[in-house]
């Protein structure tokens, strides 16, 4: 009986793996051959709103371009800290080539809407299907066979969002790709194509799972922020062989040797179990995890000269977002 269950689970996993790249492959097969280069004029406000642009990629719990509720406090605090120095760009759904989330305009949208609805339950088992789907797309992004196609699609979505926000090609304004968890790999993949159009690309990885993606060759600097009790980023170290030390000429190891990757450990935050990077409940020592996380994200940008140092005036926490109270 147990053997049958194990075999059934393995077959199911294999089926999911086999079907994972099909969306990317069918998307590319439907594209026209790249022909004429066009000028990428900004489509947003006439005046540039800032000199640093931060593009946020959600973690694997996301079902659409709107950040999941647990991530909103982080983004609100980050936006408050950045002020006018930087533009925070959201809205890219990182786990599909189709530029929209799982809950709209696709086959099976109804299923994903139900999973999203169940995500807020106390013991969300079925909504792990969302995480599983997104993890498979992270694998697609990291795979050398599909990554160039998948990452091109994501880069085009990011590029469109930047231009809609007012980014001007040729301005030299730096773009910081901020990836949480699986979103970090998507950021690295997109970096190759963004740098190709002259964008100075930096990257912040928050508990990110990264492969040795060629995009690392074009990132000016990557800051990897990790909680001391977060073990999930080590998954990338294990499952992606090109990250192993004896592949010295891999993109990851070369970037590390050149000093373009900095690892920064912060508080005792976990990846998914409380207290996480996104928790708002003060700990015994008074430290609020999400504030510690925001500081860790902003400090490297200040040191690099991408933004100015600014502190929130005391007592001026941003308005909490509507939604279930934070239990973490």
């Amino acid at each position, binding site marked *: 009986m147990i053997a049958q269950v194990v075999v059934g689970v393995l077959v199911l996993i294999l089926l999911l793996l086999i079907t994972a790249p099909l969306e990317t492959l069918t998307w590319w097969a439907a*594209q026209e051959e790249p022909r004429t280069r*066009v000028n990428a004029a900004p489509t947003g406000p006439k005046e540039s709103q800032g000199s640093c642009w931060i593009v946020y990629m959600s973690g694997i719990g996301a079902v659409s371009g709107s950040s999941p509720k647990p991530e909103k406090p982080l983004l609100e605090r980050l936006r408050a800290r950045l002020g006018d120095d930087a533009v925070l760009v959201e809205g890219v759904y990182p786990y599909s080539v189709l530029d929209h989330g799982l809950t709209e305009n696709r086959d099976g949208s109804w299923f994903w809407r139900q999973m999203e609805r169940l995500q807020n339950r106390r013991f969300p088992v079925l909504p792990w299907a969302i995480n599983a789907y997104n993890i498979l797309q992270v694998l697609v992004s990291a795979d050398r066979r599909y990554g*160039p196609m998948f990452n091109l699609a994501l880069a085009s979505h990011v590029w469109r969002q930047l231009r809609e926000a007012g980014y001007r090609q040729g301005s030299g304004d730096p773009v910081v790709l901020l990836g949480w968890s699986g979103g970090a790999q998507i950021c690295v993949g997109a970096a190759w194509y963004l740098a190709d159009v002259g964008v100075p690309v930096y990257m912040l990885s928050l508990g990110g799972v990264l492969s040795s993606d060629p995009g690392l060759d074009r990132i000016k600097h990557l800051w990897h922020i990790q909680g001391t009790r977060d073990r999930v980023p080590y998954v990338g170290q294990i499952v992606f062989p090109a990250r192993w030390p004896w592949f010295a000429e891999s993109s990851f190891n070369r970037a590390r040797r050149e000093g373009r990757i900095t690892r920064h450990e912060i508080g005792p935050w976990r990846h998914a179990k409380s207290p996480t990077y996104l928790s708002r409940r003060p700990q015994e020592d008074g430290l609020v995890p999400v504030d510690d996380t925001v500081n860790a994200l902003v400090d490297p940008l200040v040191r690099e000269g991408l933004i100015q140092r600014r502190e929130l005036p005391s007592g001026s926490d941003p308005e909490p977002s509507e939604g279930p109270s934070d239990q973490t």
Partner: protein
Amino acid sequence: MLRPDLAGSGASVGGVTTTIGILVAISMLAGRGAMLAINRVRGLSYLFLLLTTVVSVAVVVGLLAGILWSLGWALGVVVGFGTMANAVALAASPGVFAFVVIAPGVGPFLSRGLMAWSFLILWSLTGQVFGVDVPMAFLMSLAASVATLALVAVLGGPASRVRNNLWRRLTGRELRRSSRELMDIEGILEMEG
């Protein structure tokens, strides 16, 4: 089944091995979905690639069978070439699952697993066909496999050039070897299409 002279119908045995070869070719192409997508393969171009894959599978089976037959002849054990070819074709049967190679991340490992499985079958059948002991069968299978890989490496280049030329005549465009070539197109993010 390996001995058509004993099994009776050579035609049915040949039919099975031919079927295996075609299924292996179809499965191999399915496993290379990235290459199919990057080249927008459909219709006639798919049939062309399927035909070339069937031919390459047949050539590899023929080469391996010929080398094994030669090794057996050198050892004083003469078997029919058809028997040898049938055995090698059967050893290639795990290739029917080659479509699993499409899986991201684990695909290349699964491919190596299928190759190892094929080798184990070849090892077993070599012992049966030639009537040799297990270590000798292993050495013969290993030597023949390595020699076949070396020959494929040497002959593969010219064969690929012929295939690419035919592809260009058929489709009017170059055959992309991998999607990595997209990363070398400057400014692709700004291109129409």
